[in-house]
């Protein structure tokens, strides 16, 4: 309970209203781990319904380091939402442990749980703002229910509203705001207790592209300025690519793969990741796709997709290694978290079956798409 005491909302040290930056002492003085870390140990969750049991999470082992922007992706029903909600115990694991700031949270009593939730902010897809309260009352609520004196609430609310860029909107009702503004109120409400962790549940899924970029920018800014750990779930790969440093891909309640975004996206190893990335990757032109075959015929060209993370591929070396004419069908470079990821699709006419092996020495990942008959 040492950690809870240090994060207590009444702790006067934490009420530095001059800056939005939390006091470092409050950040590091947690027993057994830095503030803002989450560890899952064999976390499983089973739902029982009339139609049988559903295994939402299956023995998840995962560590989220302090200060990262950690993305959880997966298809719908993969268990993203369940995993996120075990962090503040909106969802109780069936078995396994969740450890926040070095402290197992399953043993917390009602008071301990309330204290934990005040250290963890959360924002939602549909914002979940109270329609009967003004922006100011919404943002003040976490402090008001924590018993913080009114004189301290006012300045703190103004401060977070400034942080999210909503200075002039304090006294309007949420129904008067746009989607992007509503999510800013949600972020302000989540940050008002100076949490060490911010959970984002599909926070941009209900927003238009412009508001999405603005909110993602704000989240990145908050992460940099306040050092808050951000854990977000999304089904949009572009969101992960835009702001996450690390990512875990969930598939049917299990971890398909995890690691830095540039690596997982650059060279996806699991079929689930590839499937999620499909909309992002430049795909085969339609006329080629229509003529695609899986078996080799005389004079057919072999189509390969080559992905290389980090460094550019040497085209001359590619032609040399192929030992046959190489035609470039499509090529491009994606920037993922500041790293270049090159993708290209090439057609090799009359290629020997072992050509893939020979190309592999060049580095990068080679995937056989199929054969296209040489009728053009």
């Amino acid at each position, binding site marked *: 309970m040492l950690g809870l005491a240090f994060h207590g909302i009444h702790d006067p040290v934490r009420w530095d209203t001059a800056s939005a930056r939390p006091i470092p002492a409050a950040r590091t003085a947690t027993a057994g781990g830095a503030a803002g870390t989450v560890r899952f140990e064999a976390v499983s969750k089973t739902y029982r319904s009339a139609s049988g049991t559903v295994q939402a999470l299956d023995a998840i082992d995962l560590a989220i380091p302090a200060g990262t922007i950690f993305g959880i992706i997966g298809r719908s029903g993969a268990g993203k939402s369940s995993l996120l909600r075990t962090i503040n115990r909106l969802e109780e694991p069936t078995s396994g442990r969740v450890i926040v700031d070095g402290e197992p949270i399953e043993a917390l009593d009602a008071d301990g749980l309330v204290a934990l939730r005040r250290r963890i902010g*959360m924002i939602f897809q549909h914002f*979940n703002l109270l*329609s*009967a309260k003004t922006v100011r009352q919404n943002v003040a609520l976490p402090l008001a229910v924590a018993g913080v004196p009114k004189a301290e609430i006012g300045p703190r609310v103004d401060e977070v509203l400034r942080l999210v860029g909503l200075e002039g909107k304090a006294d309007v009702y949420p129904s008067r705001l746009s989607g992007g503004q509503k999510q800013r109120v949600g972020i302000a409400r989540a940050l008002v207790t100076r949490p060490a962790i911010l959970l984002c549940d599909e926070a941009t899924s209900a927003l238009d592209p412009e508001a999405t970029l603005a909110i993602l920018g704000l989240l990145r800014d908050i992460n940099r300025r306040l050092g808050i750990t951000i854990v977000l779930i999304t089904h949009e790969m572009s969101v992960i690519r835009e702001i996450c440093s690390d990512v875990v891909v969930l598939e049917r309640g299990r971890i398909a793969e995890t690691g830095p975004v540039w690596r997982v996206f650059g060279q996806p190893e699991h079929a689930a990741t590839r499937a999620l990335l499909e909309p992002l990757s430049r795909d085969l032109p339609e006329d080629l796709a229509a003529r695609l075959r899986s078996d080799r015929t005389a004079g057919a060209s072999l189509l390969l997709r080559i992905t290389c993370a980090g460094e550019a591929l040497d085209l001359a070396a590619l032609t040399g290694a192929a030992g046959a004419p190489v035609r470039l069908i499509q090529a491009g470079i994606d920037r993922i978290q500041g790293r270049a990821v090159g993708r290209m699709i090439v057609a090799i006419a009359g290629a020997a079956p072992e050509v893939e092996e020979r190309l592999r020495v060049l580095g990068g990942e080679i995937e056989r798409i199929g054969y296209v008959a040489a009728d053009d």
Partner: protein
Amino acid sequence: MSPQMIDRLWQAGLDTLVMVAASAGIAVLVGLPLALFLVTSGPRGIFPAPRTNRVIGTLVNGFRAVPFIVLLVALIPFTRLVTGTTIGVWAAIVPLAVSATPFFARIAEVSLREVDAGLIEAAQSIGCRRRHILAHVLLPEALPGIVAGFTITLVSMIGASAMAGAVGAGGLGDVAIRYGYQRFDTTVMTAVIAILIALVCLVQLAGDTAVRRLRAR
């Protein structure tokens, strides 16, 4: 109409107002907590008590099933216990309240149930305790619906209070039956109907205005 009759109508109007106001007050004081209990004590509620929830739910349905005129008679021993009498305005308030409370509780329950579960989850995520969720989320968010439901309750109680004449409670319904119907005094009958229509319109207008103000936020 004779001056005595106008006097009688005036007194009957006051009696109706007293009966409706007092029993409506009881219906809110008892019905609202009842509605909160019914909403929050379900298996997935914030105060789960499924068995008690089922018992209370059945009890509410039982009272709702009994026609008011039957309730009026069946409750006579209980009324005597509470008010010491079985005739008059105060004796009519008991069955009126007993009838209106479960009615209002069910209507308020519907409004409370319509509060988005996401709001409750959000409140939990910011460290709200269960009493905070009642005070800051459930009641304020459901308030427009509860006020609209209260308006419906009031209007149906004005109707029910006319039946209370059966226990000698007085009120407008009593005058209409004794003078308008039994003595064939069409003028009195018309006057009572006009007053009742005006009363109901007034209540509905006030209720609608309050709801519009609340929803304008």
